[in-house]
């Protein structure tokens, strides 16, 4: 059975059970069922929840027929194979960036899989995410382009990308994607971010025989919150990441709030934590959740959060920056956006 959510999209009980599995009290057993099986598996594939769904089945939180299991196992294995292919790509990409002296951090998928989930196979992913230090943005894009990575979207005219942009997606010849992040979001909560802050410290994971620098736990939580609140697809897995970092990793969430406040983005973190508890139906008391629910979200912030939640067009999201930019910078920003619009077909 599907359940309506705050944003109006249907969520299937089996996916909710998978996304919350291992967090808090267990719920009554859910059956995958023949009627919804295809939709649930498609949802799990799209949201990279197959690993968590498989673990929920193995632990008995979700029941399934042998036929259903065969399909789920095949899907999980496909995602695991993609995960190791992407990690190999991450290592090759790291070698290119290091050779060029670029300061970068691995974030999201493989970082969370190895550092925050008890079993890396639980957290699958469909691309590689790298955050580049703002001072090295142009160098990073240039190095990877020269190494054969293809930029899907055209370079925007002027300096919109480097000054205000979120980043770009690069594709390899084999069709794998690297999301290169300049910041965590565009718009109201992105332009005030001082990304240098999250480069002040680092964690690491060993991949392919080398150390990969990773955002520290508060930084990973911050990125997870930005993705959950402002990402293009705000599926259950995004909220599981937030809850996982708080409840299992015990990330220093106060440090996350502190950085977010300095970026005028406290509402992003508060909203992500609140919605994680709601959508995952968590009944766990935690000071991070108490802090999130007691945080006052201004009308302006709420309006922008809702706009991102309904996936408003790029231009609307970008224009939400205007009230946060210094007045002297507004004409330049509008000029960049206007030039971008004219390039579109």
């Amino acid at each position: 059975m599907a359940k309506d959510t705050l944003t109006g999209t249907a969520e299937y009980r089996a996916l909710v059970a998978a996304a919350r599995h291992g967090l808090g009290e267990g719920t009554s057993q859910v059956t995958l069922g023949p009627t919804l099986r295809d939709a649930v598996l498609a949802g799990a594939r799209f949201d990279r929840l197959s690993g968590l769904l498989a673990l929920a089945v193995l632990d008995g939180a979700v029941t399934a027929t042998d036929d259903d299991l065969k399909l789920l196992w095949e899907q999980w294995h496909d995602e695991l194979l993609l995960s190791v292919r992407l990690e190999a790509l991450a290592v090759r990409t790291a070698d290119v960036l290091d050779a060029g002296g670029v300061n970068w951090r691995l974030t999201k998928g493989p970082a969370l899989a190895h550092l925050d989930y008890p079993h890396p196979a639980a957290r699958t992913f469909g691309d590689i995410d790298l955050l580049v230090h703002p001072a090295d943005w142009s160098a990073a894009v240039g190095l990877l382009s020269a190494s054969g990575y293809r930029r899907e979207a055209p370079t925007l005219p002027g300096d919109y990308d480097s000054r205000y942009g979120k980043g770009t997606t690069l594709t390899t010849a084999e069709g794998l994607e690297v999301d290169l992040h300049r910041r965590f979001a565009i718009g109201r909560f992105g332009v005030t971010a001082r990304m240098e802050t999250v480069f002040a410290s680092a964690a690491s994971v060993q991949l392919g025989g080398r150390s990969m620098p990773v955002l520290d736990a508060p930084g990973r939580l911050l990125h997870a919150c930005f993705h959950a609140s402002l990402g293009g697809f705000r599926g259950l897995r995004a909220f599981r990441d937030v809850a996982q970092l708080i409840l299992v990793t015990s990330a220093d969430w106060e440090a996350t709030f502190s950085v977010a406040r300095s970026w005028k983005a406290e509402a992003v973190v508060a909203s992500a934590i609140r919605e994680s508890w709601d959508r995952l139906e968590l009944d766990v008391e935690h000071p991070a959740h108490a802090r999130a629910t007691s945080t006052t979200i201004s009308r302006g912030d709420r309006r922008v959060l809702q706009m991102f939640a309904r996936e408003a067009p790029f231009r609307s999201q970008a224009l939400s920056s205007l009230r946060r930019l210094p007045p002297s910078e507004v004409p330049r920003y509008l000029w960049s956006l206007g030039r971008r619009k004219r390039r579109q077909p």
Partner: protein
Amino acid sequence: MRWRRNPRVLWRTAPGYLAVATVGGHTLEVGGPGGELWLHLAEWITEEELIAALARRYGADEPSVSPDVRSLLEELSGQGYVDRDG
């Protein structure tokens, strides 16, 4: 003879499943006991120890497990996924 994982290999295991990749992007999927075998290769282990461990795990006798284990090790070694010592 001793065996261990090549530390440069990327990998995932699930029940009855192993996926490995080289940094260069070559991949291999192994079903059955491949994942279990891989977990024993975290440190150098002799072939005899490995066969004994897998025989215990699957409730089988060592002579019946041995050919499959040796064959899989040879395949993994041939493609650079495991290191051989001796």
